[in-house]
């Protein structure tokens, strides 16, 4: 908290540290990194202008919840493909995340996840390249040799070249999709879901900004190229990150059939008359307390990142009696304390959603253990003004998708007994190498 308060006018965030991404985007002269102070990858006025535009109609609870009908419908369709994909679930989950976010972004139900339905190969190409772009960025970040070659000697490594290729492909697809959307908007042929989409709102705001702008630098509107860049960034980021969180949740569900039953009972008590999930149950987490506790526990034992925040202070700061000079960078280890034996009841590695029931939280109050209930530990999306702008939409996607799978199937993991045995690696985020799971239809 103290560090966040010392960030100054332009807070720092994770994006600034993603040098491989910056390098690749710089190589294709992307508008999102062009100009003063590295634009969206920096923290000047340009960052603020882009961030403000991007997070409008996305970050607030009301905005994120407004997309729930589309996300639920996309999850229903995606869930149908699970049994056919049981041998390659990681790729399937990437496609599920893409389906749900394109429902938000474009108001379209693309059904890329379900292999039983026809799919435009362009969408599959987008998923493949978006995944490669984000995963290669993460791998480069953890590679000292890549840092040295690219940053010290200014020699582009194979990883960055691969990212450049993926950026070119995904940018071209995004541009084409936006042009098609714009044409439909001008022709008045958008569906109801498309009219409620993020892009429809963004295009209206874009038009309003253009009409209201003067020639002054302060109110410079977002231009069309930047709008394409913003949509590209959101689409690309939405695939590999959300799917990592979903993958861990799926692992824990498959390994704990008794918990599946509890989740199912909770969800079935909140269905619509038509037998679908109701958006209303996800607008308040208290409506689905067991699901909420289940996902909170999944984040505790298998977080998608261990270091959820990186912050830089713009003035000297004293932490625990140590003076840290300005311009130093801080990381926030979100994982270790949540696995601290002295702070938890029982085995810290045991998966136990009941740790997050209101009674358990109340018991921790006033003890050192209450630290794990601090909001900074509850999700992997950072905090403050640089919190992930898509965080609420992403969590809604995870809630909806897991719920739909549990309503549709009995899920089992025949090859492992514990999540600790399941190998994982760093893709865009820490992701399990999913073993084949059994999906037995319930309907």
């Amino acid at each position, binding site marked *: 908290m103290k560090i966040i308060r010392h960030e100054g006018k332009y807070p720092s965030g994770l994006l600034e540290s993603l040098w491989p991404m910056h390098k690749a985007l710089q190589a294709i002269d992307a508008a999102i990194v062009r100009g003063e102070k590295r634009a969206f990858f920096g923290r000047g006025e340009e960052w603020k202008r882009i961030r403000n535009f991007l997070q409008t109609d996305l970050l607030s609870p009301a905005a994120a919840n407004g997309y729930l009908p589309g996300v639920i419908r996309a999850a229903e369709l995606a869930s149908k493909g699970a049994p056919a994909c049981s041998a390659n679930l990681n790729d399937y989950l990437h496609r599920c995340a893409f389906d749900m976010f394109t429902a938000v972004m474009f108001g379209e139900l693309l059904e890329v996840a379900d292999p039983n339905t026809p799919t435009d190969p362009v969408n599959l190409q987008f998923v493949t390249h978006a995944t490669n772009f984000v995963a290669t960025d993460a791998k480069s970040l953890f590679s000292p040799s890549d*840092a040295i070659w690219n940053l010290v*000697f200014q020699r582009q490594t194979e990883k960055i070249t691969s990212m450049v290729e993926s950026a070119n492909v995904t940018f071209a697809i995004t541009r084409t999709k936006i042009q098609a959307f714009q044409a439909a908007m001008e022709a008045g042929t958008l569906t109801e879901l498309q009219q409620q989409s993020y892009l429809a709102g963004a295009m209206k705001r874009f038009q309003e900004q253009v009409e209201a702008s003067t020639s002054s630098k302060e109110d410079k509107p977002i231009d069309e190229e930047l709008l394409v860049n913003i949509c590209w960034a959101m689409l690309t980021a939405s695939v590999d990150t959300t799917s990592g969180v979903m993958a861990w949740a799926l692992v824990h569900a498959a390994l704990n059939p008794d918990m599946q039953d509890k989740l199912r009972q909770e969800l079935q008590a909140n269905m619509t008359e038509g037998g679908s999930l109701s958006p209303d149950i996800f607008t308040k987490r208290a409506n689905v307390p067991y699901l909420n506790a289940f996902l909170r526990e999944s984040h505790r034992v298998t977080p998608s990142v261990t*270091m959820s925040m990186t912050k830089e202070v713009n003035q000297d700061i004293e932490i625990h009696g140590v003076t840290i000079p300005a311009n130093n*960078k801080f*990381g926030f280890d979100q994982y*270790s304390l949540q696995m601290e034996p002295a702070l938890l*009841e029982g085995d810290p590695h045991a998966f136990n959603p009941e740790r997050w029931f209101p009674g358990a939280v109340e018991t921790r109050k006033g003890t050192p253990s209450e630290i794990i209930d601090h909001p900074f530990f509850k999700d992997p999306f950072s905090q403050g003004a640089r919190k992930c702008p898509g965080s609420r939409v992403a969590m809604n996607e995870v809630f909806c998708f897991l719920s739909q799978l549990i309503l549709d199937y009995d899920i089992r993991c025949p090859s492992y007994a514990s999540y600790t045995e399941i190998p994982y690696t760093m893709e865009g985020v820490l992701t399990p190498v999913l073993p084949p799971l059994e999906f037995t239809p319930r309907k």
Partner: protein
Amino acid sequence: MMKSGLPALQTAARRMLLATTRTNAVAASIHGLFWDRPLPLHAGGTGGGCRPLSTNSGNDPSKRSASTSTSMASSSDFDTNFDFVKIPSLPLLGSMIPWHSGIPPQDLTKLRENTLKIKQKFGHFYSMGVPGLGAGSHGTNNNSPKN
């Protein structure tokens, strides 16, 4: 921006040679890898002027008593020692050389386990050099309940 090719190598080499203290070395290594940020004096720039991080006592990781037990433990056992530990770091390579820094070898399939090991060995509050990621000087990990 960083200069390319030979001038960049020369600049990096010069910074390495001028890094006379451990604090300077870490600072130089991180700065040698970062984009276009000017090197502040306190971070160990070529002009001398080093203002090292001030620390209180207790930097000996061997004195730590982190528990790896999985049995029930009382929250009164929680280690509330927040002494600052500087993990050894080298120019350019940061803390990525395990035999030098004492951190586990970099392994993307063991990040969770390694995070626990680092906390167990160095405590709640430490700094380490991470090439490309650290800014200013150290990549400092602060995990303080109060701050």
